[in-house]
């Protein structure tokens, strides 16, 4: 029996405006629009429409509109359309449901329940346009105490390697294969220009990206794709990927169709072969094993590089993070429930993990209690949308944040959640050369730099309002936060007081 699922969207074409130019036919990679030469008419097969808006913004006469299909089932809170349609799809195919992007469920976004402080009367706010403001952040292990030579005023103790961020925002791991090379070029150039970092993900490093090494984080994950000594030494940070917020505990699988000639060269696997990333790294079954890989990588990079360890935010995250610090990680990266993916089983994306706000608060508090907070920097990811989220994250204890989805949105992504199909109409999550050229790295990197610049100005405004002139003074300063609409327990875990208190 064939499954009949009503189309999600309705394509409205205003016949008075449509000039049959067929731009929409060419722009839609989901084969919705087509041209009938006999009738000189452009038509739509709405069943395939994903609501990505590519056709709408490219239509030269504004003839198109995409509307949600309001066709309703009988109202039923339990059996909402998604629940019904998922069952229909699985009954047809017998497979797992696959999806892209991050968790789209209505779990509480704690950023929206936290408010920032500002100075009034009792201490002056600072005007960031005319007074110096410091956003520079150094990631890396900090010594337990600092000794200054009284004569030369220089640091007496040896400093472990550090990396410098001009803005406390880095680009999350997005592998070549999951995103296109043009996207990686946009990210790498933008990171270089803005003085921050981009992250290779686990697909290796394309030869053309080696020049951006000073602003690159190279990832080592369970598949070990494209990992060799030159790669390990190409960046400033080596990140061991244990988990990802969108799919904690799950391995990955880049289907053979996406392993094109260039992807094959970068991942160092044959063209067209499936790239399997096992769920665990089989040399890490414990904290002790993690320590072993951390030091294997330090050894392999001559102790010149920082070693980051990235995990998904799960229930016991604070205890795990403590183990990671003790295993020698210089950076702890935690990816929350809303973190995105190029492809993940839907049931995992939607049901596994915890929000990053809670994970961050718990980890920072735990590391402080154990007096090891200085031994590693804390970077968080998973749904960061704007500079307000960043300021709150810093005040909850993060050293910096990773952005993935936000960076892709800057490049055109409309969060249509079709990344796993390889058909991304915006040319981001695809290896189809006809689509990937839709991203121009020149323009892409400029847009990303613009975004970071905008956020940096806003962050300075937020700091100035609080009467603080350095991001460092906000870091872990939870007194600048108040909770609204949160239970006592939530406030306790976040370590903040309620509004009005």
């Amino acid at each position: 029996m064939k499954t009949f699922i009503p189309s999600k969207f309705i394509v409205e074409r205003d016949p008075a405006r449509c000039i049959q130019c067929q731009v929409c036919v060419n722009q839609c990679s989901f084969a919705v629009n087509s041209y009938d030469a006999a009738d000189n008419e452009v038509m739509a097969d709405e069943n395939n429409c994903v609501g990505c808006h590519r056709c709408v913004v490219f239509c030269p006469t504004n003839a198109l509109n995409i509307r949600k299909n309001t066709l309703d089932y009988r109202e039923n809170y339990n059996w909402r359309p998604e629940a019904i349609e998922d069952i229909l799809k699985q009954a047809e195919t017998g497979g797992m449901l696959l999806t892209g992007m991050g968790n789209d469920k209505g779990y509480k976004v704690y950023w929206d329940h936290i408010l920032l402080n500002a100075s009034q009367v009792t201490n002056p706010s600072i005007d960031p346009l005319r007074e110096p403001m410091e956003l520079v952040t150094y990631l890396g292990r900090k010594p337990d105490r600092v000794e200054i030579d009284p004569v030369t005023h220089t640091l007496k103790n040896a400093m472990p390697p550090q990396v410098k961020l001009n803005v406390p925002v880095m680009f999350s791991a997005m592998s070549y294969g999951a995103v296109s090379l043009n996207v990686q070029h946009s990210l790498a150039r933008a990171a270089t220009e803005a003085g921050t970092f981009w992250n290779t993900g686990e697909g290796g490093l394309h030869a053309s990206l080696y020049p951006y090494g000073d602003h690159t984080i190279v990832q080592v994950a369970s598949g070990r794709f494209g990992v060799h000594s030159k790669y390990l030494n190409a960046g400033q940070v080596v990140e061991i990927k244990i988990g990802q917020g969108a799919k904690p505990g799950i391995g990955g699988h880049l289907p053979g169709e996406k392993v094109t000639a260039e992807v094959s060269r970068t991942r160092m696997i044959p063209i067209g072969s499936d790239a399997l990333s096992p769920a665990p790294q089989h040399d890490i079954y414990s904290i002790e094993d993690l320590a072993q890989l951390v030091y294997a990588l330090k050894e392999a990079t001559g102790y010149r590089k920082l070693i980051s360890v990235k995990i998904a935010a799960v229930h016991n995250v604070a205890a795990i993070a403590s183990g990671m610090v003790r295993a020698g990680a210089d950076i702890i990266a935690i990816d929350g429930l809303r973190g995105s993916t190029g492809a993940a089983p839907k049931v995992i994306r939607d049901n596994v993990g915890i929000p990053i706000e809670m994970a961050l608060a718990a980890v920072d508090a735990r590391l402080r209690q154990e007096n090891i907070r200085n031994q590693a920097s804390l970077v968080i990811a998973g749904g960061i949308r704007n500079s307000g989220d960043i300021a709150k994250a810093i005040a909850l204890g993060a050293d910096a944040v990773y952005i993935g989805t936000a960076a892709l949105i800057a490049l055109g992504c409309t969060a249509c959640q079709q990344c796993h199909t390889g058909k991304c109409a915006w040319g981001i999550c695809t290896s189809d050369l006809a689509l990937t050229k839709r991203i121009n790295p020149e323009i892409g990197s400029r847009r990303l730099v613009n975004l970071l610049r905008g956020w940096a100005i806003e962050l300075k405004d937020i700091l100035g309002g609080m009467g603080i002139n350095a991001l460092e003074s906000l870091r872990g300063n939870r007194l600048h936060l108040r909770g609204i609409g949160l239970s006592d327990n939530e406030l306790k875990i976040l370590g903040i007081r309620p509004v009005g208190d």
Partner: protein
Amino acid sequence: MPANPALKKPHNSIIEINAQDIATHELNNQLKQAVAAGANKILMKNVCGQRYIGTDINSPVEIEIEGTPGNDLGSFMNGPRITVHGNAQDGCGNTMNEGEIVVHGHAGDITGLSSRGGRIFIREGVGYRTGIHMKEYGNKKPIIVIGGAAQDFFGEYMAGGVLVLLALNMKDSDYHRTRYMGTGMHGGVIYMRGRLESHQLGREVGTAELNGADHEVLSGLVGQFAGHFDLNADKILRHEFTKLFPLYHRPYGRLYAY
């Protein structure tokens, strides 16, 4: 760190390092200095559990180890030729790219994990998940030859390269105890001696007799193995061998609905 007087020796020399009571990091530093000093052979004595030996050395230098090197021997290795007069521990040849490891003894778990190149010869047996996720690319093809038997998950997720299991400690009629052999295998090939019940194999693995090309590969590798350990290759090759190969190159094709 204390300077090693042996390091001053001129180019093309043998440098000796006494590893007694030296910690891992310091030992590896001495090793790197010896390579930088132009040694083409390094003799490491009294090695006892120090890890990562051979990591971050990108030249075909020869390293002889007396004693028991620790975990991750030759991890991420890119060129050296290591001979161990003793046993290797876990993670020997982890993510190796190029080079050779010869162990006159046995090796632990995940030998050759994710290796993409190089050769590993183990005179005796190996632990769990040996050859897991080996892969090949272009002219890079990792090879592991094992004289003894292996524990479970031998060749798991194997995506390329050659695994040879000689099981010289077993009679032709003996059954292996290994379970889940080649689970998830989707590339490469395994040549093995000794018997197996079908339930000991992963679902993704097929068995076959060796053809002419297989015999050629096997005899070449057995020849090298026998050369390293002073054994008679012809005698080994007279035994019966089975070939294990991946049934599907895309074992996980039909997992997804939409």
